[in-house]
């Protein structure tokens, strides 16, 4: 799927804004500093807005991968404890 070592993954395609970001944020809280989360998200508003919200939380976005089926995987490295 990617060159990154994924520590955990979360699917936020079953919720809508703003719960998308909340669900991703909760998943990130479970991780330790430096661990990598893969977030599965829908096209449209989630892929437009969730990366920016995660950046504003201070985490590091590494890659956005197109699954080719209207969903994406956003690879995020957790910053902070």
């Amino acid at each position, binding site marked *: 799927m990617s060159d990154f070592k994924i520590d955990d993954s979360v699917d936020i395609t079953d919720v809508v804004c703003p719960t998308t970001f909340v669900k991703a944020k909760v998943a990130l809280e479970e991780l330790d500093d430096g661990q990598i989360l893969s977030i599965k998200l829908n*096209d449209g508003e989630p*892929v*437009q807005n969730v*990366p*920016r919200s995660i*950046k*504003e939380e201070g985490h*590091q*976005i*590494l*890659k*956005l*991968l*197109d699954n080719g089926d209207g969903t*994406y995987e*956003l690879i995020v490295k957790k910053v902070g404890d």
Partner: protein
Amino acid sequence: MAVNYAVLKKGGFMRQKQKNNFSLRLRVVGGNLTAVQLSKIAEVADKFGEGYVHLTSRQSVEIPFIKVDDIDDVKNALAKGDVEPGVCGPRVRTITACQGEAICPSGCIDTYALAKELDDRYFAKELPHKFKFGITGCQNNCLKAEENDVGIKGGIKVSWKESDCIGCGVCEKACRQGAITISDGKVSVDNSKCNFCGRCYKACPTEAWDTVHGYIVSFGGLFGNQINKGETVIPFVEDKETLLRICDAAIKFFEKNAKPSERFKFTIDRVGKEIFEKEILEAYNE
């Protein structure tokens, strides 16, 4: 002594249906009031009005039911809380603004600083008819720039900074205009589609963009008896000095050409769009 309604109106005192009662419009810039101002306004509304204020459609505050005999006392009381009366009638009105980049994550320009500057430059300037400025921080347009005689909208002009790019692909999706394409790790922006919203830059994990924060300016908006969306006739304005030159040119055109009680749009239409656009472009290119 007869009451001079025109003078009172100029000074922000709006005649009410109720005889000898005035709704006093206050001077507000960019929608901000300090706690000290608010507290003084509350005190005056309680003492001289009927204990309430009205928030106007253009970010001002009016204190209704001020009695004609109390006008001087009211002005003096307000002055102690740094509050001044506003204006009505044929002149430059309240400069409205959203919270802009100082507060709002979407903001592209410092709307309040600009509102202060325009207020210092133009507030209450006498003209053939009312003249409204509105400043909005970004393409979300919370402040409805195009409703105003001159509307100013913040924007960000971007160019890709390859050295900082990690190739994550977020910008291509963050763009709502379909202006960004990525191929072979190269990001390209179709400038004919870019609307300067700045979403690519704001979403980018490494902010791999060179940016110019500037202005999209529209002219001739109105939203009263007649409705017209202000039109943009010049390219993206990249600096404040140019913006101010353009505002000066717009006001000068209105002052020189408008008939009494004629809104800016109708002056532009009557005199000729081409003539107006030429004058604005000259100010842009100066």
